[in-house]
């Protein structure tokens, strides 16, 4: 680890920063980040072109076979980096195209709002052209006629960089009509969101993009059948799209090889750590890197604290324990442990932190960010918040923990309209499983009658 990279905590203004020096990164091993500069400045078009930029677009458009792009992506098995891990190639292969089907949209999900997640902004702030390049390939493969980057509203720096890069790309003929003489037209606009977590759900994102309430849509039909404005649309995460150029340029086998024998998932992953560690930050590492290795890169726990638990990929993933640190962090392995890889950015919980308070905090977030469409999420999550508040204050009653169990179970996958409530239920369910005694300490009363002693709003 180079000393030239200042510690995150020493900088006055937060900047997304990769904690790997240029010397460690190469085109062969770090497809996402090898072009990034140690000084953290954005890689603009000239530099990007010098570093093989837009070569994949040139290649794909020259070959003139969109289906081959899809086949490559499928073979490389690039799994959705937004957290769901769905094969991007498979998603693309299901997009309706041809016949009298209208050309639709390629939408980049840049609404990075998962608590504890800060990877997409790095790519957008420092290497905007990689995303644009990936979007051109995605659009080409899916026959999309326009692209939107649905950007988290608070990411003003990303917006500034992306817009400048889009202008550069358009100026240079990488966007707009007849890209690089191929006859393929495509352009991109940046749409900044108004700030709702649910906009990261791809169909809620589309509704929001259309100017509607950000409620998710029922699936099927999937966006590939009827997406934005009813046209076939593809929504991919920033990191997913940023993987595409290297896959097209170097091939699926190379991509698969990046992760070695750690996992059957190919490629690299932007992993990161937040919480009380020495060096919170981001690293591009082979897919399947263990939690222990990542934590080591982060310098271990700060001030000799003990690790109690960790979330592998954002607030909507389940808690893992120190004993899970040696597992390879890929989609399937983490899934088998009752959690999800999610975004791959670890949140660590030190021994002295109250799981009840932590869960109350998380559930407040999820309850607040519910779109209000389906009942379990809209009315179930606020109840968990109230119960957790009560437990936190020692006001819990007998039966409250069982009620939380039931609420978490009732918010599980398939029971709610989208994945928001299951995302809220997973940390709750795992916290109750692993740290039940902490919750039990909050039960201070026998079961009372409802409204026997009404509790003022805002207190409990």
């Amino acid at each position, binding site marked *: 680890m180079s000393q030239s990279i200042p510690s995150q905590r020493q900088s006055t203004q937060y900047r997304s920063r990769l904690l790997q020096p240029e010397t460690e990164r190469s085109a062969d091993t770090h497809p996402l980040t090898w072009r990034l500069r140690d000084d953290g400045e954005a890689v603009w078009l000239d530099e990007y072109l010098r570093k093989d930029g837009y070569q994949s677009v040139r290649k794909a458009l020259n070959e003139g076979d969109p289906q081959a792009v899809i086949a490559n992506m499928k073979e490389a098995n690039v799994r959705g980096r937004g957290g769901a891990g769905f094969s991007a190639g498979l998603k693309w292969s299901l997009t*309706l195209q041809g016949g009298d089907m209208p050309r639709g949209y390629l939408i980049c999900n840049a609404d990075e709002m998962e608590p504890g997640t800060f990877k997409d902004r790095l790519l957008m702030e420092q290497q905007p052209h990689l995303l644009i390049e990936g979007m051109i390939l995605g659009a080409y493969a899916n026959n999309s006629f326009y692209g939107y980057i649905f950007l988290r509203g608070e990411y003003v720096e990303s917006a500034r960089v992306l817009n400048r890069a889009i202008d550069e790309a358009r100026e240079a003929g990488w966007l707009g009509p007849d890209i690089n003489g191929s006859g393929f037209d495509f352009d991109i606009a940046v749409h900044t969101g108004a700030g*709702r977590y649910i906009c990261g759900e791809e169909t809620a994102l589309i509704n929001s993009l259309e100017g509607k*309430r950000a409620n998710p*849509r*029922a699936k*099927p*039909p999937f966006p590939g*059948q*009827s997406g934005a*404005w*009813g046209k076939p649309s593809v929504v991919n995460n920033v990191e997913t799209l940023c993987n595409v150029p290297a896959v097209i340029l170097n091939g699926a086998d190379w991509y698969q090889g990046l992760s070695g024998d750690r996992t059957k998932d190919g490629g690299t992953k932007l992993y990161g750590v937040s919480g009380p560690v020495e060096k919170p930050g981001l690293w591009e590492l082979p897919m399947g890197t263990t939690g222990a290795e990542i934590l080591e890169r982060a310098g271990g726990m700060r001030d000799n604290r003990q690790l109690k638990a960790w979330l592998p990929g954002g607030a909507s993933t389940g808690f893992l324990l120190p004993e899970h640190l040696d597992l390879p962090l890929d989609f399937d392995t983490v899934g088998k442990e009752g959690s999800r890889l999610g975004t791959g950015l670890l949140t660590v919980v030190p021994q002295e932190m109250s799981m009840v308070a932590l869960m109350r905090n998380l559930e407040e977030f999820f*309850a*607040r*960010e*519910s*779109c*209000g*469409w*389906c*009942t*379990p999420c*809209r*009315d*179930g*999550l*606020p*109840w968990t918040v*109230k119960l957790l508040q*009560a437990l936190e204050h020692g006001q819990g*009653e007998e*039966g409250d923990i069982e*009620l939380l169990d*039931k609420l978490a179970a*009732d918010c599980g996958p*398939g*029971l*709610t*309209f989208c994945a928001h409530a299951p995302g809220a239920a997973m940390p709750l369910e795992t916290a109750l499983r692993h740290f039940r005694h902490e919750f039990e300490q909050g039960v201070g009363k026998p079961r*009372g*009658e*409802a*409204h*026997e002693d*009404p*509790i*003022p*709003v805002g207190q*409990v």
Partner: protein
Amino acid sequence: MAIIHVDGQDYEVNGAQNLLQACLSLGLDIPYFCWHPAMGSVGACRQCAVRQYKDEDDDKGSLVMSCMAPAADQTRISIEDEEAKAFRASVVEWLMINHPHDCPVCEEGGHCHLQDMTVMTGHDRRRYRFRKRTRRNQELGPFIAHEMNRCITCYRCVRFYNDYAGGTDLGAFGAKDNVYFGRYAEGTLESPFAGNLTEVCPTGVFTDKSHSEQYTRKWDLQFAPSVCHQCSMGCNISPGERYGSIRRIENRYHGEVNGYFLCDRGRFGYGYVNRSDRPLLPEWRQQPDEEPTTLEVDTALARITDTLRHSQRVIGIGSPRASLESNHQLRELVGADNFSTGIEAREQACLALMDDLQRTTGLHTPTPRQIENHDAILVLGEDPVQSAGRLGLNMRQAALSRREAMGEKIGIPAWNAEALKTLGQDVYHPLHIAWPTATELDDVATRYPLAPEEIARLGFAVAHIIDPAAPVVDNLDPATRDTAQRIADDLMAAERPLVVSGGSLVSDSVLQAAGNIAQALARRARQGGLVLIRREANSTGLSLMGGQTLDWAMDELTEGRADAVVVLENDLYQRLPAQRVDQALARADIRVVLDHQRTATLARASFTLPAASFAEGDGTLVNLEGRAQRFFQVYEPGYLRPEARIHESWRWLHALAAGLRREDATDVNLDEITAACAEAHPALTGMVEAAPGAGYRIEGLRLAREPHRYSGRTAMRANLSVSEPRPPQDEDTPFAFSMEGYSGFDHPRQQVAFAWAPGWNSPQAWNKFTDEVGGHLSGGDPGIRLIHRQPGHRDYSLRIPAAATAENTLRALVLPSLFGGDETSARAEPIQQRMATPVVILCHIDAEALDVHHGDTLVLGDSPAMTVHEQDDWPTGWAGLPAGLLPGLAQGEALTLSKTTGGEP
């Protein structure tokens, strides 16, 4: 058809439906909220969870929302699965978290879907011990009360109001557990279909304000199957009565006419029945200006028959707002030669033409429900929402149904509502409307703001393009030619083109043009349709019965060829200029008026007989389809007001006829009159079959008008006498004025006074009375069609009006008006609050000629001041005036408008 397996039983179901609808249609109870049979599925409430198994070998399965799962062949589900039941209990528990425990004071109580579903899922203990969320309510105008604390966030209100009915001023605001359904600011809900919110809302957020002031629980109301009298649509309604007044109107499900929805005129326009100034006793007036004296029935009948007997000739003036039976009895009383329909001559000619076109153009008239399946519509000279309320909703669904066709191509089922909305966006089936001013359908239509003659010329031009054998329109300007081409192209490209026209413009040429288009289409596409809108509830019926025009009757009187007149439920001043009516009535020595309202005509009567409104009487109406439908008496006015002498007009007229023959007025019943009417008029023969006769019984029982929980019967009359009299006996119908009698759903029947089934108290109980949910009544939808397509040949009409030339006269263009344009509902208070302020629409040129600007006021003679509304594309030479504003004003009448000077009007 598909076979599904539910809890081990095999059932045959409609595979195009979702599992929820299929199961409800089988009579299996699954609780639900956000789903509605007319509005499809959205999967929001999660209440209808069931367990679904992959196949025979799958014993694990997973919970699915039955509303979002297709009822595909070989689907295996369990409703009774313990985990599914537990999850459904959780859902209702969540919904009840913030719901107030105000059922005892909530107006929804007793017909509340939320109550029913809560009981069904077994939730009866509150575990949520924290404080509830509370909200502010909004003032939403004279029709709808708002109580947001009760909201369970099912989204049905906005889905109905915006997606189904095209409203724009009700929305969902906020997020998480604080979604607010209301207007962005307080104010009257603008949609003319807002009243349906009271039934669409599964709980008490939106309730009927007209009911609120005289509130009665559903189980304490007395009902009868009735038919709305406020336009020609013939929507089936279920009026509820308590203590001798109508307390509310609810939709009565009819699979072909109104489905689940009514317009606000029909729902809130009943107040005229309850007016305190209604005539209750026969009255007599020696001189026109005298205060009347009341008479006993026998005295009144004797005096009237005496005087009539001494008159030389009696003219009878019928009414298109009275039943066929009453009109027929009047005709019997005065003789066919002396019978007038009470309809103004030009309107009557239009009505006759409409009957003829329905028979001869070769296109059949679809039912309102069938309209929704038409894939291109041309409306020629009508504003359907204003003239036929509910019909506009059907036409909107036709335009929206393009989505279903698009969805079919990529496998989105017709019930997946939000997905279809997404797919369809703003793409609609073509809907062309030739009408001079804005309509409620404009957001899904292309409208051509033309004057009446130009509308006709456009129509003739369309017909000629479709079939070159139809006459050519001379001197057609290029713009109209292009429009005609566009319309014709759309109609010809459609599988089921529909032509809609009607009598609103009172224009022979517009109707002839519509007829030519229909005929031209009939030669190409047999699946096309023709819908012709009449003005009043029984306009079609009166036209089929026939009779002289009102103008003829006025002439007969004015010219002294008759000296007595009997007017049936008709305010002649609404139809002809006051001067003309005054003149005619002044010449009649005897003026007998039967009505339930104190009209200007009734004020001129020498004898008044208090007639029954739809609420106190039975009879038959014919709607715009040509469907004869029976409405049944809701309550007996004399039971609670013994002084009242209200009877059906046909009963009064029967007694008068007997008196004239010097016979005792033996009692007569409805069936006899109906049969006599059917026999006398070949076109009406089928009307007997419109509903079962008085002898109809189910399991040997009469049909109950009152729910079995009806309370207070023995006490409700105690202020008059502590001994309870025998309940009134109904010799006219199979219904009893009692909770005793059949009120179940297991025996298929057409005539359902109120929908109730065990566990189903809300309007959703209609699910139990239909062959499949959202289908037809299990005993068949009520009514019988009297007008049929006839084989034969119609010659194309050649009556093409000449192109308009510049004239200096300003002519009246009377615009149908949902609120105020109908004589009786305009007398109901909430409707009066919704009537537009007096307005006159002018184009800029005409406004300039009158030296007025937008917002100035004009008067016509001694009319109320009318605010000038300048409309850029309004046709020159016409002044647009809402119907009902200037009674007796004829369509196309030349007007001399003058500017009001100084001060407030």
